[in-house]
């Protein structure tokens, strides 16, 4: 992609990712955060955390399905925004909702599985955010870095559990998020399975070379 187009796409991502925060700020100023502003802000930030996490996880499937490489360049930005929103979501819970009532928060964390997994989801994002710079990729080495960053799949599953567990009977929006997550992880799983099959087929052909041809090239590592 051309440099200018890349910059334009990044600008759109920045704008889109900051818009929900801007809306929250605007509604705060106009006293328009519903009758229960704290509950609304918590849910709003939580929804957008999940949406940004899904956007982050959608970049690789776009390459796998359509062969587009450029979305991968947005992955880090989207992931860091997801982390920022998760942090804000958690901060509202600690600072505004419970007003630093540690005793009650600790009890909630222990007794309420949805809160436990929510915090775990946030914690899994910490090492990913901390190693998001190019320097850290070099320091860890691409292989180790990649392995570490697969932790984001765990984040996704924990976030899904968090949402499913907290949603009241009768609500349906949580299923939309969870179905999207399942789709995005499913595309990866399908791709990985196909690769594994191809590798095995390749190995089998190497093990039993066709006489006279001297065997087929080893497909491992492709």
């Amino acid at each position, binding site marked *: 992609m051309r440099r200018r187009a890349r910059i334009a796409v990044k600008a759109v991502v920045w704008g889109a990712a900051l818009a929900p925060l801007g809306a929250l700020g605007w509604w705060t100023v106009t006293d328009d955060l519903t009758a229960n502003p704290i509950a609304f802000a918590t849910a709003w930030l939580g929804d957008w955390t999940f949406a940004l996490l899904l956007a982050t996880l959608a970049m690789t499937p776009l390459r796998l399905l359509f062969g587009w490489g450029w979305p991968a360049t947005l992955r880090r930005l989207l992931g860091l925004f997801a982390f920022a929103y998760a942090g804000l979501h958690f901060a509202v819970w600690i600072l505004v909702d419970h007003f630093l009532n540690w005793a009650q928060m600790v009890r909630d964390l222990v007794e309420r599985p949805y809160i436990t997994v929510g915090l775990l989801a946030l914690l899994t994002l910490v090492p990913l955010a901390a190693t998001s710079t190019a320097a850290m990729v070099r320091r860890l080495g691409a292989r180790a870095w990649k392995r570490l960053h697969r932790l984001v799949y765990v984040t996704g599953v924990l976030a899904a559990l968090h949402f499913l567990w907290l949603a009241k*009977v009768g609500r349906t929006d949580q299923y939309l998020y969870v179905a999207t997550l399942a789709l995005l992880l499913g595309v990866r799983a399908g791709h990985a399975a196909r690769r594994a099959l191809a590798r095995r087929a390749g190995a089998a052909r190497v093990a039993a070379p066709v006489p006279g041809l001297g065997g087929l090239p080893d497909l491992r590592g492709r």
Partner: protein
Amino acid sequence: MLIRRAARFKASEITDEALYLRRREFIAGGAAALVGGCGRAEAVSAPKPESLAPLPAPRNERLSVREPWTRWEHATTYNNFYEFGVDKDDPARLAGSLRPRPWTLVVDGLVHRPRRYDIDELLRKFPLEERVYPLRCVEAWSMVIPWVGFPLAALLKEVEPTGAARFVEFTTLHDPEQFPAQRRGVLSFASLDWPYTEGLRLDEALHPLTLLAVGMYGRVLPNQNGAPIRLVVPWKYGFKSAKSLVRIRLVREQPATAWNKAAPHEYGFYANVNPEVSHPRWSQATERRIGEFRRRPTLLFNGYAAEVGHLYAGMDLRQDY
């Protein structure tokens, strides 16, 4: 060089000038769609109090709490009324489809004198009073509402329950034309089993605090708050106080109740406000009073322990939640 530069654009790539001049509108529109599409189109507005018929009634000071009332705008825009939808502003946005007049309330079952009442007949027949009650939602928020109504006991006395009656069942209107969430579509999930039913033990129903409300804030009930007549049981979680009632039936067995059917482990038949008994997924120890910043501790029986505690003497409130 000049030629190559000129070739960088195809005619089809050039934006029409009229569109180009409106580019900011598209960006603004896109941003609005992005924000609005995710749960919140615009702030829902509260009904004007003057748009509802006045229903003044003397306040029963003895049975009223002395706490500031929740703002009208909050009490009429932040509602759980699943017949309109699961979001808090669905009732305020969609309540126009409910027609609270004419309206008939049937009172029957194990009674000596079953009756059908027209809503206006009820209003004339029973002396109305104002009662300021705290309303504690099972979702850990609360309001203070000045209801206008009459004790359920007065109505039950008229129909004369038989000796066999032990429970009272309340039924909300079931009419998909008036309640959009009761409609069945291809992709719509029924959030609850319609009609919404609730129930009380007869002694709970006869308790002087148990109110049939027909108004609030000195006006008839707004549709989103359960017009034209609803139950108000101030020591129980809000979902017990069924709205838009069409039937009150005296029965022998404990009636099935809507939320209990939907999630039996989460919503019990009794649903007494109790800070010691958590909802399986969240604590009930504290609540947020709408309009206040800090959470406040939740009181046993929503502050009415002295008045209603005896009804549950000897019962394990953890078992009968």
